[in-house]
C-alpha cells in the first residue's frame, strides 16, 4: 500500500475556480453567440472572461449552511415579534407608515431584482459572473420574501399594506420605483448590473439601508430591524459583485470607459431621484430620527463614495456631474416631497401629517439655510387651515416628469421659489421633465421613454377604471372608478390624525397597559 502523499490543500481561490469556471465549456454543436446572444449588443467589449475576479467565494454547500442559519434566527425573531404584538412597542404609530412605504415601494423591487439577476445569471458569457449573478438572484428572492413575511404581521393590524402587489403595479407614486427598476431590467445586461449591482446596491445602498433599518431599530421595530440586518448581510456580497463588475468592464477595454461613465451618470441621477422617497421618510416619517437626510448624504455618499470614485479615477472615471445638483437639492428634497404627499394624501395608501412644533425645530436645526425660509411658512399656514377645520388638499392631478415620473415639485437648483421644467420635442410629440439630467437621459434613448406609462396620463386615457366600466354612463364618477380600480382602501388614505390606525394603536396599546 503506497504511502499516500498528503494532497496539497487547494487554496480558496483555486478550489472555487474548479467549482465554478471549470464547469463551463465552449459549445460546439451550437454557436456560442446563439447560446449567449445578449452580452455584446451594448458595445461593451470583453476580451478575456477569465480575468474575472470572483468577489465572494461561496460554494452552494456553504451557501445553504450559512443562509439557513441566518434564516432560522430571522424567522424565530419575526415569530416572537408577532406573537407578543411587537408592533405595539414601536415609538409611535406614525412610524408604521414607513413600513407601508417599505412594503409598497421597496419589497417588490427585491422581486424585480431577483428576476433581473436571474436574467443575467443566464446571459453573461463568463461562468464566474453568471454564478455570482445566480446567487444574487436567489438572495434577492430571500429579501422579497423575508420582508413580506416580517411585514405580514403589520398588515393584519394596520391599513395600506394589504394591496401592496396591485399598488406597486398601478398606484401613481409607486410607478417611480417601478419604472426606475424596469428601466434597468429592460436595458442590456451590462447596463442592468451597472445600474442595480453598482449604482443602487453599492453607491446608494447605505442611503437606503441606514434610514430604514437603523431607523426601525431606533423606533423599536425589532421585526424590521431583523430582516434588515439579515438581508443587508447579503448586500455585502452584492456590493462586492457590483464593484467587481465595474472594474472588470473598465479593465477589459478603454472603449468601455465612456459607456460605463454614461451609465454611472444616468443611474446615480435616477437612483437619487428614487431616494427622494427615502429622504422624505427619514426627515418626516420617523418619530425618533436616526439622522437627517443631509447627514446621511454626507456620510454615505460624500465620504464613502468619494473614496469609491477616487478608486475609479485610475480608469478615467469621474464623479457623475449630477452630484452638483444633488448637493444643491440636498436641503430641499425631503420638504418638497412631504409637501406633495401631504396635499395628495387623499390618493395614497399611507398617512401623512403636519410636523409638530418640536419636529419643525429639529428640521430648522438640521436645515438652517432652507427650512425656516421656504417650508416652515407653508406648514404653519396649513396647520392654521387644519385648526380652522378647512384642511388644505390638492384637487388637481399633478404634472409628472416623463423620465422619473415624480410629480414636478422640484424647484430650479439655486432658485427655491421657481418650479423647474425642461422641455423636449420628439417625433411630433412633446415631453416635459423635472430637470436637465432627466431630460438628458430621455435624449439618449427617446424610443424607450416615449413608452412610459405616466400614471396621471393613464388615468386620463381611461385605462384605470374597473373592467366593464362605461365612462359615458349617467352620473359616472371618475375619481371613485379609479379608486376602485386601484383597490385604494379609504381608511388607508388621508391624515394620520383621526385615522383608524391611530385609534386602533392607542386602543391596543392601552389594553397592554391597563386592566379593563
Amino acid at each position: 500500500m503506497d504511502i499516500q502523499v498528503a494532497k496539497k490543500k487547494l487554496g480558496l481561490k483555486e478550489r472555487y475556480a474548479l467549482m465554478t469556471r471549470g464547469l463551463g465549456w465552449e459549445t460546439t454543436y451550437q454557436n456560442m453567440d446563439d447560446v449567449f446572444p445578449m452580452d455584446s449588443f451594448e458595445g461593451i467589449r470583453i476580451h478575456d472572461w477569465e480575468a474575472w475576479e470572483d468577489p465572494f467565494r461561496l460554494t452552494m454547500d456553504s451557501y445553504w449552511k450559512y443562509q439557513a442559519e441566518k434564516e432560522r434566527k430571522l424567522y424565530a425573531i419575526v415569530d416572537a415579534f408577532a406573537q407578543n404584538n411587537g408592533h405595539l412597542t414601536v415609538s409611535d404609530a406614525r412610524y408604521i407608515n414607513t413600513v407601508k412605504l417599505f412594503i409598497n415601494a421597496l419589497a417588490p423591487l427585491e422581486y424585480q431584482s431577483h428576476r433581473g439577476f436571474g436574467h443575467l445569471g443566464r446571459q453573461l458569457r463568463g461562468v464566474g459572473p453568471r454564478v455570482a449573478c445566480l446567487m444574487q438572484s436567489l438572495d434577492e428572492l430571500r429579501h422579497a420574501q423575508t420582508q413580506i413575511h416580517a411585514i405580514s404581521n403589520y398588515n393584519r393590524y394596520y391599513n395600506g399594506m394589504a394591496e401592496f402587489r396591485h399598488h406597486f403595479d398601478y398606484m401613481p407614486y409607486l410607478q417611480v420605483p417601478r419604472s426606475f427598476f424596469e428601466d434597468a431590467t429592460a436595458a442590456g445586461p451590462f447596463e442592468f448590473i451597472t445600474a442595480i449591482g453598482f449604482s443602487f446596491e453599492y453607491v446608494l445602498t447605505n442611503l437606503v439601508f441606514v434610514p430604514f433599518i437603523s431607523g426601525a431599530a431606533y423606533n423599536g421595530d425589532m421585526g424590521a430591524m431583523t430582516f434588515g440586518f439579515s438581508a443587508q448581510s447579503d448586500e455585502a456580497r452584492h456590493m462586492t459583485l457590483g464593484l467587481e463588475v465595474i472594474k472588470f468592464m473598465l479593465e477589459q477595454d478603454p472603449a468601455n470607459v465612456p459607456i460605463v461613465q454614461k451609465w454611472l451618470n444616468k443611474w446615480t441621477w435616477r437612483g437619487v431621484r428614487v431616494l427622494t422617497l427615502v429622504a422624505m421618510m427619514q426627515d418626516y416619517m420617523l418619530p425618533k430620527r436616526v439622522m437627517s437626510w443631509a447627514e446621511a448624504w454626507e456620510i454615505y455618499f460624500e465620504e464613502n463614495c468619494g473614496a469609491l470614485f477616487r478608486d475609479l479615477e485610475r480608469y478615467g472615471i469621474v464623479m457623475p456631474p449630477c452630484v452638483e445638483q444633488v448637493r444643491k437639492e440636498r436641503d430641499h428634497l425631503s420638504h418638497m416631497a412631504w409637501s406633495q404627499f401631504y396635499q395628495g394624501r387623499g390618493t395614497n395608501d399611507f398617512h401623512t401629517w403636519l410636523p409638530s412644533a418640536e419636529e419643525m425645530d429639529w428640521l430648522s436645526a438640521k436645515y438652517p439655510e432652507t427650512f425656516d425660509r421656504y417650508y416652515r411658512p407653508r406648514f404653519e399656514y396649513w396647520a392654521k387651515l387644519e385648526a380652522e377645520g378647512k384642511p388644505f388638499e390638492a384637487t388637481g392631478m399633478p404634472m409628472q416628469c416623463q423620465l422619473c415620473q415624480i410629480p414636478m415639485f422640484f424647484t430650479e437648483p439655486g432658485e427655491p421659489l421657481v418650479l423647474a421644467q425642461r422641455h423636449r420635442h420628439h417625433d411630433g410629440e412633446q415631453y416635459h421633465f423635472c430637470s436637465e439630467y432627466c431630460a438628458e437621459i430621455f435624449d439618449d434613448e427617446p424610443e424607450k421613454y416615449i413608452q412610459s406609462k405616466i400614471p396621471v396620463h393613464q388615468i386620463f386615457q381611461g385605462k384605470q377604471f374597473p373592467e366593464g366600466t362605461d365612462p359615458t354612463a349617467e352620473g359616472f364618477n371618475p375619481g371613485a372608478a379609479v379608486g376602485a380600480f386601484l383597490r385604494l382602501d379609504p381608511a388607508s388614505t388621508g391624515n394620520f390624525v383621526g385615522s383608524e390606525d391611530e385609534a386602533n394603536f392607542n386602543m391596543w396599546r392601552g389594553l397592554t397597559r391597563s386592566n379593563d
Partner: protein
Amino acid sequence: MPVNALKPYSFPAEDAEANFHGARLVYVGWDRHLMFATPYAWPLPPDLPFAAMTQGPMADAFSQHPDWAKIDWAAATWTKNGEAFVPDFSASLADNGIIHKDSLRFTTPGLTGIGGLGQ
C-alpha cells in the same frame, strides 16, 4: 442618437393625443405659489374657451389660496413651454394655439403667496 437594442426598436408614443378620447392634455402652474407643490394636469376639450379653463379647472385647484380672489387677469403674465404667451381669454384653447401637452405657467404681479414668501 437612436437606442442601442438587440433588434429593431420602435414603438408608438404612449401619450399621443388620439389616446385621450378627444381631450387635449394641458398643464398649468401658478408661479411663486408653492403651496401648490406642482403644476396640475387636465384633459380638456380643445374648443374650451380659455376663460372657461381659468374659471373651471384652474379655479377648482387654485381658489383655496387667499391670493386667488385678488387676481387681476389683465395684469397676469403667461408662458407656454417656458416662452412668453399672451392668451385670448375669449378664444378656445385650440384657437389660442394650445396643442396637446402644452405646459402653461402664469404669474400674478403683486400677489406673491402666503406672507409674501412665494408659498
